[in-house]
């Protein structure tokens, strides 16, 4: 198969780049390793600074990518090999088995209903469960089931329930070879795993009360899910015991600006998403008390400072200090911190604590693509001031959080920028 451009990663960066290229008339293959495109953005609640509902602005882009005549999707697929010969890249893509025939499945969800196995649902970061055969989420694109063989007990119920005979336990991985003229890398970021910050007592297991790990300490993506219009329990409840959290704190820079964890970088979005979450939380629970522990509030983008000032004026508390530890008292998390503006050592008890985790790099393709990363694993554009999306390989461009943590407006701008560089390049090498 031949395309003009291969876009790797179906987050907002990859989608935006694909649509722009498609609109300009180029044939694009968009490869996504997860069962659905959408990336991290589709999981968010509302997005700063405009507080648009993330689903409302991401789903149509996802749908547009699926229906665009020039954009072709390959989900649940991974890039395995890239070879540049002359002006072309030969690429091997591995299509992982869904154990569900994609062209047959109509997304009716009947398989899901009958499956007896329950495991944590990735889309909601384990706050609720999913079945062994499942549709990743309501607005998934493509809206097709996928069967997770690791947890399946081979009972065969789904196979019998499926009206389209789409379940196929015998599916094999399939290697597809394609040729393209240019590549855009939009593989995004990985969330900082909060377990690594031992002092903050985070437990991955949200249902089990452990002696010192506390399920009422959650990470910010879990909070995004709790605040989303499509949220798990249709109400904002803390995971430990289902109580309405009346006092909530955010601990900024969790896993960022922290040399002891090997990540001195600032994650650029966590100040703002925490301020946003505090606003959404106080609108959901009007009598709720929100407090933010910070070192510097980094409200630097267009409209950000104004947004921060507004939230501050609404009565959210801002306490300056790097949180030392989080302990537990009667199932409630207790934040231990020195307030650096008063010198006071505080022990503040909350119903729930949100760890504002940082964005780490996803360098998994750097060797396959032959492009450099910095010591933190982010791709480095060698000529960053003049052309922030070009890499050292002619014809390979990079966009979004793959080069550095960044917010959606900056990500989208880079995605379009990569498309522009691609178009210029394609016109020069001849299409």
């Amino acid at each position, binding site marked *: 198969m031949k395309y003009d451009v291969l876009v790797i990663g179906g987050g907002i960066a990859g989608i935006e780049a694909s649509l722009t290229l498609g609109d300009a008339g180029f044939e694009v293959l968009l490869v996504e390793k997860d069962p659905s495109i959408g990336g991290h953005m589709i999981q968010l609640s509302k997005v700063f600074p405009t507080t648009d509902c993330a689903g409302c602005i991401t789903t149509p882009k996802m749908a547009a990518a699926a229906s665009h005549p020039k954009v072709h999707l390959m989900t649940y697929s991974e890039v395995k090999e890239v070879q540049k010969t002359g002006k072309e890249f030969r690429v091997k893509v591995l299509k992982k088995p869904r154990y569900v025939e994609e062209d047959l499945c109509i997304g009716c969800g009947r398989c899901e209903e009958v499956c007896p196995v329950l495991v944590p649902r990735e889309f909601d970061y384990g706050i609720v469960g999913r079945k062994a055969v499942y549709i990743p989420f309501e607005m998934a694109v493509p809206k097709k089931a996928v069967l997770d063989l690791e947890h399946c007990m081979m009972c065969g119920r789904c196979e019998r329930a499926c009206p389209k005979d789409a379940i196929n336990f015998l599916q094999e991985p399939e290697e597809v070879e394609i040729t393209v003229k240019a590549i855009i890398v939009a593989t995004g970021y990985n969330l900082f795993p909060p377990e690594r910050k031992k002092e903050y007592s985070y437990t991955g297991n949200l249902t089990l009360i452990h002696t010192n790990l506390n399920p009422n300490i959650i990470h910010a993506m879990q909070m995004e899910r709790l605040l989303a219009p499509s949220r798990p329990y249709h109400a904002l409840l803390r995971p430990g015991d289902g109580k309405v959290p009346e006092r909530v704190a955010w601990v900024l820079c969790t896993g960022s600006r922290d040399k002891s964890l090997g990540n001195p970088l600032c994650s650029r979005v966590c100040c703002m998403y925490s301020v946003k979450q505090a606003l959404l939380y106080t609108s959901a629970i009007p009598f709720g008390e929100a407090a933010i522990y910070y070192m510097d509030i980094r409200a630097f983008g267009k409209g950000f400072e104004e947004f921060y000032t507004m939230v501050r004026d609404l009565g959210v508390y801002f306490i300056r200090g790097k949180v030392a530890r989080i302990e537990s008292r009667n199932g409630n998390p207790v934040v231990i911190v020195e307030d650096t503006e008063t010198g006071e050592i505080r022990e503040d008890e909350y119903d729930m604590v949100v760890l504002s985790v940082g964005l780490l790099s996803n360098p998994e393709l750097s060797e396959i693509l032959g492009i450099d990363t910095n010591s933190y694993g982010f791709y480095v554009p060698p000529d960053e*001031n003049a052309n922030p999306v070009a890499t050292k390989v002619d014809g390979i461009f990079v966009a979004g959080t793959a080069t550095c943590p960044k917010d959606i407006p900056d990500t989208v701008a880079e995605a379009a920028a990569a498309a522009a560089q691609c178009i210029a390049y394609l016109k020069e090498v001849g299409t």
Partner: protein
Amino acid sequence: MKERNKIGVYVCHCGGNISDYVDVKKVVEAVKDLPNVAVARDFVFMCSEAGQNLIKEDIKNLGLDGVVVASCSPHLHEKTFRNAAKEAGLNPYLVEHVCIREHSSWVHSDNPEAATQKAIWIVKAAIAKVSLARDLESIRLDMKPEAIVVGGGVAGMRCAIDLGRAGITVHLIEKSPFLGGRAAQIGKMYPSGISGIELVKKLVEEVKNNPNIKVYTNAEIVSAEGALGEFKVKVKINPRYVKGNVSDDTISQCPVEVPDEFNYGLTKRKAIYKRDFTYPDTPVIDMNACTKCGKCNPDFNQKPKTVEVTGSIVILATGFKPYEPKEGEFGYKVYDNVITLPVFDRLISISNGKLEYNGKEIRDIAFIYCVGSRNEEHEYCSRYCCVATINAALQALEKFGDLRVYHVYRDIRTYGKYELYYEQAGRDGMLFFKYDPENPPVVERSGNKLIVKVKDLLTYGEEIEIPVDMVVLSVGMEPEMSDVFTMLRVPFSRDGFLQEVHPKLRPVETAIGGVLVAGTCQGPKDTVEATASASAAAAKADTYLVKGYAELEPFIAEINPEKCDGCGECVEECPAGAISIENGKAVLKEALCKGCGACGAVCPTEAINLRGYYYDQLRKSIEAAGGD
């Protein structure tokens, strides 16, 4: 006309945004049996692929002749649903998208019953409107591959290069005598360490070598008009007053010396001057300074030339200007050694050996942050200044050694990987003091030192006095204002910069079709972000210009000559000058019509309809909305 009677109605939950307050099932119930309705459904996210497929399937299987979607604002998704209908073979303009989120669930969240009732009225009105909808066709507009870029800073050049390489003719218009903008004035730039001059050189080389880019410098825009596909810009090119090749030797003959604005007056230049790193390499004579002595073999008879350029798209890349502190603001203009960051940047670049200012060696410096930002006058944060300040301090330390540096700040916003600069500053022993905007630092003089008095929040509000030789004010960015904004009627944001349509969905478009923004004219940015936005603007332009055409909505005026009595009211009212009276009847020039509807509103005989909003449609809608 015959009414449509196979209308599909789709009510969206918006994942709870609507269904938490509006009883969507009740809305469906209320309309599903109306005479014009074939099917009514609700769904959790109509805009998702599954939701759109629902509509497409119904169009195909039930042969729908009209669609009503009741969900979020049409501003967001009207296009989405029109495209879906089109893919299923239905004329996209038979889709009516109405808003029951902003217009109902959100504003009436305190009264779900009333919210539901209002949603029902809105949907009924939409059904009535679609029942009389006409098959309209979009207007196809051919696009010549030609664009106009205003501003020759890094953003303007980046954009011009990307377009030029894609085969598009670009007119790059720069008002100053040379390309480059403000980036050239920066010493060693973050993040890549390249100097501003090298950066500009690099881009200028590409501009020069691209045959598709036509550069106009010393060029003033006198008028700009038109619309997507047909902009016309008149440019007055001011003379440089030089002829032939002018050698450096000749330039040095000039007896006049004036402060060089490139170095903020820290150095002098001649009345005739050039900038080696940029384009063009022809010098220019500054007539405000020139005494007409004639030593440089000038040509004072040159006259300004006016040229008209055309383009399908206009990209504004007019940049920023540093905030100029008021007299007395932190001692500015009161004490000699209080300067702004851009000046300090030049001072580092041109100083050798030791750092001197006004004949005084500088051994200790205090930087005061957020000057002209994050206050009542400018609510916004200027984004670049925290990193640029620390970067400048590090450079000064590297170049001159042995400096004591104090940073008096509010929040250090070295976001992302720029944090490493902040860390380096700490390692290098620079000291940081945090001030409260309610209690800003005060600058005073004591003997030959300046004293910065700050109530430092990091030491719990202790009053600290810092004696220094120099105070540097980290000034913010303001938009560089330009007449061309008003000529093209581009809107501004609250912060005074140019307003994009939507920061995530349409970040480089303005409300004026075909006018795009690039770089710092849209908001503070460093060069990484400015060039990214410039390429993004090029990409948006490519989607029209590489493809070669645009499709515009058909909602323009339609004049019924039989009803028109030639009174001419509409001619007066039309802001686009699209109507004229010919042979006693109003005649529309379709290409000019903006679809504002002003003509229809004044026509006494209802001879003018706005396509998509015909009188009969509107009357029936109003009736349906108030009908129960």
